[in-house]
């Protein structure tokens, strides 16, 4: 809404038709490309504010508090305003600055203060680049320390601004669909999409028929270049799929339950009927992980070099593949039905047939978070790239969205026609739901206002797994009969970072990256819900003793009867008074009683 209004005010003189077109275009920009919207909106921050002011003037009864609260509510669930969400988060952290930024024009502040705030302001688009918290120097007496802390804050802001400025160097644009008037995007079939895209992209829509080898699961490498297909009957293959090259292929003759790549395409792990094995890209067996008995699901945490096997026996085994050591062996209760990792904090989410989702870290033997998501069994779990939302699907034909940031509450839910077998969220938050033979794609799954799916795709066979290819507008679908890949415009991040994952990395780059990644391997015990807690300042520490005290609240044992000490005091007091009264009555009797009074009948 807000953006539309902006557009209207700025392009007020243009013809209506053009404006509409602009509107739709803008919508698509906002939907598809998180990054370029940032540019268009936030670089000239002042203009934004002017427009806001105009808007505010339009409204007759304007109450700044009300608008703020309204804004919060709307933005809370909006996918396309994720940045705003993050800003909100920051705003909670450093209230001071946020006060400066948001609608401060209306507040009647001292002129000096205003001036100061203007010089300190960070443009909206730069806020996501702020590393950690900006610590205020309030209450610090030492002038040197105060100065230093202020300077650090300034430097952080400067760095964020500089990072925002680099956005204009981003060359690629994300994909999108602009439908004709009255046309719905979900009416588009793959054939029609192919007609409108270039030859290279159209060649990426294909079906592989691998019929006898049963339902296929698959995995992409971190850079999206290689594809691992593993059929339940024991067939696996690695493809350099963008070039249409087969790297290797093998039939094990034993059932495969799950497979995933390790840190790059040269190695992958396969969960077979009895144990987990590691193979290299030529299909040669490298390791036989005997401890991983009867594995069901596999996950790989690339920054920790941890291979995680969840077994049918209720074990969650973390194996450090760089040194070949078992780091943790956790036990879970319940029948496992789904697994996913949170890419931001390496927490493993397990979904059970009881409908709960539990989050595990290697350091704790109990799950750190338990969420009851569905009343029926969970079929699939997915977490988005920023780690803010979790999407679950259950046997009750529901797909639910949960907020992982602090509340773990359900944000909203939508119903599907049949049970969703597999769900996946792309890096730009496109949700794919594989149900039966259909794939549904939702553009803004975290937005409650979205009522229509983005795209629909029908398959000739039942879907086993859906997964988005990183850095490409491609969705991979593993089915009963094989594998198919479809185009989903706007599902991939257009601009990759060569230092993290480069689809076109040369041999030398890959080698160096491997060595660097190994050197920077994060110890497994550093996996926590908030990964960026290390090296931050522990607040609210008043004394030296408090430093060593546990920050979290004491756990209450529910079986123990808890009595309020005040109540006990009261009871004691009352009893004491009664006793004294009785004693004083005996010692100094107020009324005279005969010794035989107790035998008298009343």
């Amino acid at each position, binding site marked *: 809404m807000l953006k539309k209004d902006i557009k209207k005010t700025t392009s007020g003189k243009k013809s209506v038709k053009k404006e509409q077109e602009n509107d739709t275009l803008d919508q698509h920009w906002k939907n598809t490309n998180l*990054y370029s919207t940032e540019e268009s909106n936030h670089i000239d921050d002042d203009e934004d504010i002017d427009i806001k002011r105009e808007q505010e003037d339009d409204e007759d009864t304007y109450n700044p508090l009300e608008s703020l609260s309204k804004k919060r509510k709307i933005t809370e669930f909006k996918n396309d305003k994720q940045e705003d969400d993050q800003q909100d988060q920051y705003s909670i952290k450093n209230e001071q600055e946020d006060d400066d930024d948001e609608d401060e024009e209306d507040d009647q502040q001292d002129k000096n203060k205003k001036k100061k705030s203007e010089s300190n302001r960070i443009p909206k688009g730069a806020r996501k680049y702020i590393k950690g918290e900006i610590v205020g120097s309030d209450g610090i007496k030492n002038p040197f320390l105060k100065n230093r802390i202020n300077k650090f804050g300034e430097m952080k802001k400067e760095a964020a601004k500089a990072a925002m400025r680099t*956005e204009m160097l981003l060359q690629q644009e*994300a*994909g*999108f669909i602009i439908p004709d008037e009255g046309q719905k995007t979900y009416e588009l079939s793959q054939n029609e999409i192919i007609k409108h895209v270039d030859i290279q*992209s159209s060649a990426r829509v294909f079906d592989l028929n691998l019929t006898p080898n049963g339902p296929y699961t698959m995995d992409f490498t971190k850079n999206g270049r290689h594809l691992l297909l593993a059929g339940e009957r024991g067939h696996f293959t690695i493809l350099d799929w963008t070039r249409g090259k087969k790297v290797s292929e093998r039939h094990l003759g034993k059932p495969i339950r799950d497979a995933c790549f390790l840190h790059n395409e040269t190695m992958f792990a396969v969960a077979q009927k009895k144990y987990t094995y590691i193979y290299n890209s030529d299909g040669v067996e490298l390791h036989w992980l005997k401890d991983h008995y009867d594995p069901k699901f596999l996950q790989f945490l690339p*920054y920790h070099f941890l291979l995680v096997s969840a077994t049918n026996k209720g074990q969650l085994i973390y194996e450090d593949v760089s040194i070949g050591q078992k780091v943790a062996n956790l036990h879970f209760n319940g029948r496992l039905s789904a697994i996913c990792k949170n890419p931001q904090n390496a927490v493993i989410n397990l979904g059970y047939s009881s409908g709960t989702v539990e989050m595990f870290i290697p350091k704790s033997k109990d799950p750190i978070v338990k969420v009851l998501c569905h009343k029926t069994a969970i079929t699939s779990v997915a977490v988005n790239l920023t780690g803010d939302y979790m999407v679950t699907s259950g046997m009750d034909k529901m797909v639910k969205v949960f907020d992982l940031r602090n509340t773990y509450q359900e944000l909203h839910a939508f119903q599907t026609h049949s049970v969703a077998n597999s769900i996946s969220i792309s890096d730009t938050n496109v949700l794919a739901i594989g149900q039966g033979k259909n794939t549904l794609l939702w553009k803004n799954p975290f937005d409650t206002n979205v009522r229509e799916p983005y795209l629909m795709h029908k398959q000739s066979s039942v879907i086993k797994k859906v997964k988005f290819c990183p850095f490409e507008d491609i969705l991979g679908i593993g089915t009963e009969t094989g594998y198919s890949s479809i*185009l989903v415009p706007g599902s991939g991040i257009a601009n990759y970072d060569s230092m993290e994952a480069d689809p076109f990395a040369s041999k030398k780059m890959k080698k160096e990256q491997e060595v660097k990644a190994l050197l920077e391997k994060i110890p497994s015990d*550093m996996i926590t819900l908030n990964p960026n807690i290390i*090296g931050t300042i522990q607040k609210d520490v008043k004394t030296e003793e408090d430093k060593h005290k546990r920050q979290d609240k004491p756990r209450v044992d529910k079986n123990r009867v808890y009595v309020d000490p005040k109540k006990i005091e009261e009871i004691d007091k009352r009893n004491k008074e009664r006793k004294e009264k009785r004693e004083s009555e005996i010692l100094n009797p107020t009324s005279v009683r005969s010794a035989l009074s107790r035998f008298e009948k009343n």
Partner: protein
Amino acid sequence: MKIKVISRSEEEQTKEVASDTRKLHRNLDPALHPFERPREYVRALNSVKLDRVFAKPFIASLSGHTDGIFSMIRHPTLLNTVASGSCDGVIKLWNLTTLTQRTSIQAHDGFVRGLAFTPDGKSMISCGEDKTIKMWKLDLPEYTFNNDIISVFNGKNAFTSIDHQRNSNTFATSGLSVEIWKHQRSTPLQTMSWGHAGITKVKFNPIETNLLASCTTDRAIIFYDIRENSPAQKLITSMRSNSIAWNPVESYTMAIANEDENVYQYDIRNLSKAVTVHRDHVGSVLDIDYSPTGKEVVTGSYDKTIRIFPMDSFKSREVYFTNRMQRIFSVLFTGDSRFILSGSDDMNIRVWKANSSAPLGVITNRQKESLEYQDKLKEKFKEIPEIKTIATHRRVPKNVYKRRFIKNEIHKAQTRKLTNAAKNSGKPAKIPKVLSKHTITVEK
């Protein structure tokens, strides 16, 4: 209808022509860079470990002297030239690039007590216990001397040190009194003294060039303004100071190497309290020198170790020692503040790196950037125990370790005594602060 999907061509993304340099794509979006802080922490931990691995501070030993080295001085303009004087009256000039001796000369009978280069760097002045000051001519271009004495100044007593004023032809010597000399005059211009004690060290302030500080044998530090004929201020400390150094960047800061095993920094504007105390040595501190950047001091001690202290820290950043190194009587930072020289009783001058793990030689820009990045990370996570222990732990000789332990015990006993006394007297314990304890009186 319009549809766009991501479609990249490899040529466009990497290099269009074979001769092109490969393109590096960056996207700084934090979502693409998860675990930023943990990764930075691991990097910091790795680099701090590598620092210890690469910590090889000892470069070379300059041998040639046949007695203990009591004075060293760096050339004002040439980075690689250093002069040293020993107890047997020999002065040697060294070339630090080749780590060889340039010239050697038998200058004095008995100790060479002080050396000074003239500000133009073309001549050198030395003083000794034979009551003479000699001015030597240095031959260009190699800066050697050929026994060319420009002039000889005769004093009444043995000299203990010498220092040259910056940008003039005035120099000061110490002995029984402080004497101010000019190049052209054979007799001192001024003679100044306060009290009867001998003066062991004299140093000109490099910024306020008329200001002069001196240490006496009766625990005092006396300040002179040579424009006046009398001394200006006197600071008496609890124990005697062996050496004195002026901060080359802050004109009002000076450091004294004290007999009580500590180094104190004073702000001369307020002498009632030391600004900082550096206390890691376990023997009396014999010599001190500021780094030309003014950020660090290097000290040589009777406990046979060299320590480097950052300006604002109690603890030393680095400790250097070798098995064969004896008591250190003179230390010196080189002009680029990258190296440290130590002259000791064992007739050797040793060359050390100021930063023990810094690479020698020319480094590429990428290497430099990476080192700077690592330094920043180490700074960021320096308080985390794992990193702090690795970064600060140093092995020291057994006697130093034991002595430090004893010192610590003594300190604990003293505080315990005070607190116990306070407990029994009912008054709150008044533990004196080290900084103010040191100064006894200031006279004007």
